[in-house]
C-alpha cells in the first residue's frame, strides 16, 4: 500500500490522471509488472488492471448497486444473475458487505465508497487508486475502510492512496511518496516518520494546527435559531422530519462547531439558514432581525457569508472566469455593481486583490474556475466571502480537499475574522478541525442536536460515538481514557 501525499496543486491529481489514462505525459514512462505501458484512455488503464476510486463518487443515485456496477462493463458478466453472483463473490472475498439490489440513493457515504471500490474490482483491477477516500468518513468508518484495504493488500492487490491526513497515511501505508509543485521531493518510511516531519516535507514549512489561541466569544447574540423544523416529502408521499427542534445561538466572535455523520441534517440546516429551503416551523434571527422566511439574496446582503459544502455545485460557475465568480453571490453589493449595473472594472480589480491577498495560485483572473485546483478554488471562495465583512460565516467543510498550506491559511482567516466579531457556524467531517477551531461544539444526529461538548477536553473518538447516536447529552471527557 503506497501513499501519495502533497499539497493541492502539487500535481497528485495530475499524476493520477496520467496513471488512469485521462491525460497523456509529455515524457517519462510508466511500468507495470516490469512492462512498459502507454495509456490513451481510461479504458486502456482498466485493461491493464488499474482502477480508480474518485474523490467525488461517480454513481447514479436512482439505480441499484448492481446496475451501477455493471454500467459500462456489461460485456464482462452480463447484467443479470451472473453479474449479481460476481458482485457477491467479490464482496464476500474482501469483506465489503455490499448488497447488489439496494438503491444507491439509500446508501450512506461509506457504503457508496465500498460500491465504488467494488466497481473497480469488478473490472478486474489489480492496482487501485483511491483519491482522498477518508475525506468524507467518520473515524469509525475510516477504520473499517482501512480494514477493507488491508484485506485487498493481503490478496496481493496494490493500493495507491492519496490523502492530506498525515496521521492516517502513517498508520496505513507501507511506503510514502511526497510530491510538491510537480516533482517528488522525498519518500518516507512510515515506521520512523512523525506526522510533523511528513508535513514539513509537504509544504516545506512547519505543520499548522487548527488550535485557537484565545477565546474571542462575546455575549452579543448574532444568530439565534429557535425550534427550527423542516420537513421533506419523500417520493412516495410520506412526510419526513429532516430537522426537528433545532435551537442554537451563536454569539459575536464565537465559532460554533457542528459535528455529525454526513446526511444527518447538517446540509439542510445550512440551507435553511441560507434561505434555500423554507423552514416549516421555528424562527431564525440574525442580528435581531427575523430572517426565517427572507429570500437568500436578502440574507446575503444582510451579512451572511457562505462557504458551501460542495463548491462545484454551490460555490462556483466552473466555466466562467475568476472575476465573474468573484461577483457570484454578491452581485448587488459593492464593488461588483452600482445601481443595477455591473462595475466590471472594479470587480476585476477586486478579484486581483483577492488573488493576491489569499494566495490563489492562478496565471490570471480571466481563466475559468475549472482550471484551478480544488484548494485554490476554495481560497477564492473564502476570499470572496470575507471581502464583504460578513457578520455570520457559514463554513461547511471549509478545508475539505484542501492541502495543508491552504488549510492553515483558511483557518487563520477564520480566526482573524472571529477576533473582529464574526460569528461562525462550522460544519466539518474533520474532527480535529472541529475541535481545534470551535469554541463550542454540538453533535447532530438524525436531524436533531443530540449532544454538546467542550472542544477543550473532548477527543475525536468520544465525538465519534455521539455522531453514531451512541451517546447523548453533555459529553464529558473521561480522563481514564487518556492512558
Amino acid at each position, binding site marked *: 500500500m503506497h501513499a501519495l501525499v502533497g499539497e493541492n*496543486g502539487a500535481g497528485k491529481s*495530475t499524476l493520477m490522471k496520467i496513471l488512469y489514462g485521462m*491525460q497523456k505525459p509529455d515524457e517519462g514512462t510508466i511500468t507495470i509488472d516490469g512492462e512498459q505501458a502507454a495509456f490513451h484512455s481510461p479504458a486502456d488503464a482498466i485493461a491493464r488492471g488499474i482502477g480508480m476510486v474518485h474523490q467525488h463518487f461517480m454513481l447514479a443515485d436512482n439505480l441499484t448497486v448492481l446496475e451501477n456496477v455493471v454500467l459500462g462493463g456489461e460485456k464482462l458478466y452480463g447484467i443479470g444473475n451472473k453479474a449479481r453472483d460476481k458482485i457477491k463473490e467479490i464482496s464476500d472475498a474482501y469483506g465489503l458487505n455490499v448488497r447488489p439490489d439496494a438503491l444507491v440513493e439509500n446508501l450512506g457515504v461509506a457504503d457508496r465508497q465500498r460500491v465504488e471500490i467494488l466497481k473497480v474490482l469488478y473490472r478486474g483491477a489489480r492496482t487501485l487508486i483511491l483519491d482522498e477516500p477518508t475525506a468524507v468518513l467518520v473515524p469509525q468508518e475510516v477504520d473499517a475502510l482501512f480494514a477493507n484495504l488491508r484485506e485487498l493488500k493481503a490478496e496481493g492487490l496494490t493500493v495507491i492512496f492519496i490523502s492530506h491526513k498525515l496521521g492516517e497515511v502513517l498508520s496505513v501505508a507501507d511506503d510514502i511518496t511526497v510530491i510538491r*509543485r*510537480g516533482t517528488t521531493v522525498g519518500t518516507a518510511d512510515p515506521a520512523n516518520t512523525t506526522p510533523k516531519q511528513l508535513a514539513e516535507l509537504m509544504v516545506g514549512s512547519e505543520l499548522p494546527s487548527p488550535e485557537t489561541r484565545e477565546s474571542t466569544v462575546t455575549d452579543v447574540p448574532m444568530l439565534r435559531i429557535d425550534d427550527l423544523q423542516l420537513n421533506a416529502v419523500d417520493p412516495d408521499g410520506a412526510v419526513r422530519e429532516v430537522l426537528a427542534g433545532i435551537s442554537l445561538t451563536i454569539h459575536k466572535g464565537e465559532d460554533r462547531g457542528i459535528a455529525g455523520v454526513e446526511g444527518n441534517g447538517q446540509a439542510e440546516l445550512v440551507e435553511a439558514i*441560507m*434561505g*434555500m429551503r423554507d423552514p416549516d416551523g421555528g424562527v431564525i434571527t440574525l442580528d435581531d432581525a427575523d430572517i426565517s422566511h427572507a*429570500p*437568500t*439574496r*436578502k*440574507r*446575503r*446582503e444582510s451579512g451572511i457569508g*457562505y462557504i*458551501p459544502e460542495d463548491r462545484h*455545485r*454551490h*460555490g*462556483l*460557475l*466552473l*466555466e*466562467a472566469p475568476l472575476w*465573474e465568480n468573484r*461577483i*457570484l*453571490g*454578491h*452581485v*448587488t453589493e459593492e464593488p461588483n*455593481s452600482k445601481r*443595477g*449595473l*455591473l462595475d*466590471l472594472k472594479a470587480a476585476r480589480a477586486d478579484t486581483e486583490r483577492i488573488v493576491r491577498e489569499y494566495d490563489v*495560485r*492562478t*496565471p*490570471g*483572473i*480571466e*481563466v*475559468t474556475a*475549472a*482550471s*484551478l485546483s480544488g484548494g485554490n478554488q476554495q481560497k477564492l471562495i473564502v476570499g470572496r466571502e470575507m471581502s464583504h465583512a460578513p457578520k455570520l460565516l457559514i463554513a461547511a467543510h471549509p478545508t475539505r480537499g484542501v492541502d495543508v498550506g491552504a488549510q492553515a491559511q483558511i483557518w487563520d482567516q477564520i480566526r482573524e475574522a472571529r477576533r473582529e466579531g464574526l460569528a461562525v457556524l462550522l460544519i466539518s467531517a474533520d474532527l480535529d478541525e472541529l475541535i481545534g477551531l470551535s469554541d463550542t461544539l454540538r453533535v447532530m444526529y438524525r436531524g436533531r442536536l443530540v449532544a454538546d461538548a467542550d472542544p477543550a477536553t473532548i477527543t475525536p473518538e468520544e465525538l465519534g460515538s455521539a455522531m453514531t447516536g451512541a451517546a447523548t447529552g453533555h459529553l464529558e471527557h473521561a480522563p481514564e481514557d487518556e492512558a
Partner: protein
Amino acid sequence: MKKFDKDRLILGLAGPALALVVAIALTSVVLLASGRDPIEPYTLMIENAAYADIQVLILNQAGTYYLAALAVAVGFRMNLFNIGVDGQYRLAAMMAALVGASVDLPGPLHIALIVIVAMLTGAFWAGIAGILRTIRGVSEVVSTIMLNAIATSLIAWLILPDNFGVQPEGSNDLTTGEIAESGWFPSVSMGDGGEIYGFTFVAFALGIVYWFVLNRTRFGFDLRATGASQTAAAASGVDAKKMILTAMLISGGVAGLAGMPTLLGDTHTYSLSFPTGIGFTGITIALLGRNNPVGILFSALLIAFLDKASAVLDQYGYEKEIATIMQGLIVIAVVVSYELVRRYGLRRQQQKVGEELAAAARKNREEVAA
C-alpha cells in the same frame, strides 16, 4: 490575461467554422449521391446574391430571423428551451395586426401601440409556459410545443370572417384588415433593389440591448449564472422561479417582435399567407450564433442567404430544397462541433494553467537558489 481572451475568441470561431465546413461537405455528399454536380449549386447561389434586390430580400429576412433568434437565445442563456417562439410570434403578429387595423392614431403612437400589443401577446403566450413550469414543474419544452398547436387553432378561429377576419373581394385569403398608413413603419429605399424595412434596424439595435442587459446588468448576471449552474445561482441568491418566469416573459416579448418587420414594413395585415416556421429557424440561428448577438447576426444573414439565394436553383434544374437540407445539416454539425470545441477548450486551459504555474514555481526556485 490577453492571451486567454485571444484563445477564447479563436475557439469561439472554431466551433461555427467547423460546423459550416462539415455541413457543406455533407451537402455535397448528398448532391453527389443523387448524381448532381456537388459544387455548382453554391456558385449559383453566390452569383445570385450579387443582385441588389436579392441582397435587400436577404437583409429583410435576416431582421426577422434575428429577432426570433434573440428570443430563443434569451431562453438558452438560462437553459430554458423556448420552442414556442413560432406560436408566440404568429399569435402576436395576428393580435397586433387586429388592434392596429381597428384604431386610427397619429403615426408614432399607432406604431408604438402595435409593437406593444405584439410584445404583450408574445409575453403572455410564453408566460403560460413559464407559469406552468414554476407552479407545476411542467417542462417548458413540452408546454411550448403544445402552445404552438393551440396558437395555430386559435389564429384559425379568430381569423374567421364570423369573428375578426376580413375576406378581401375576389380572394380566398383571410386577413385581419388593412392597418392605416399611420401605422406603417418607414422603410429605406434602395432604388431598384427595393426597400429595407425600417424595423430591421430596430431588430439589430435590439441586439445591442440584449448584449448590454446580459453582460452589464445585475439581472443579466443572475440570468447567466442560472444558466451556467442553477444550484450555484440559487445559493448566490437568485430566485429560480422568478428568474424562469421573467426569462420566459422576455423571450416571449421578443418573439412577439419577430413579426413586426413584415407586418409594419410590408403586408400591413395578418393573413393566412403570413410566414410561418420563423421560430424554428430562430432556434437554428441561436444555436449557430452561440447565443452571442454578433454571432446571431452572422448566422441570421447566412440562413437568410440560403433561403433567398436558393430560389434561383429551380431555374437551373436543382431543387431549392438543397438549402433546407443544408440548414438541417448545420444544426446537427453545430451541436456536435460546439461540444467538441468546448471540451477541448476546457482541457487545454487546464493544461496551460498548470504549465504556467509550474513555470512560475520553477522561476521562484531558481531565484531562491541564486
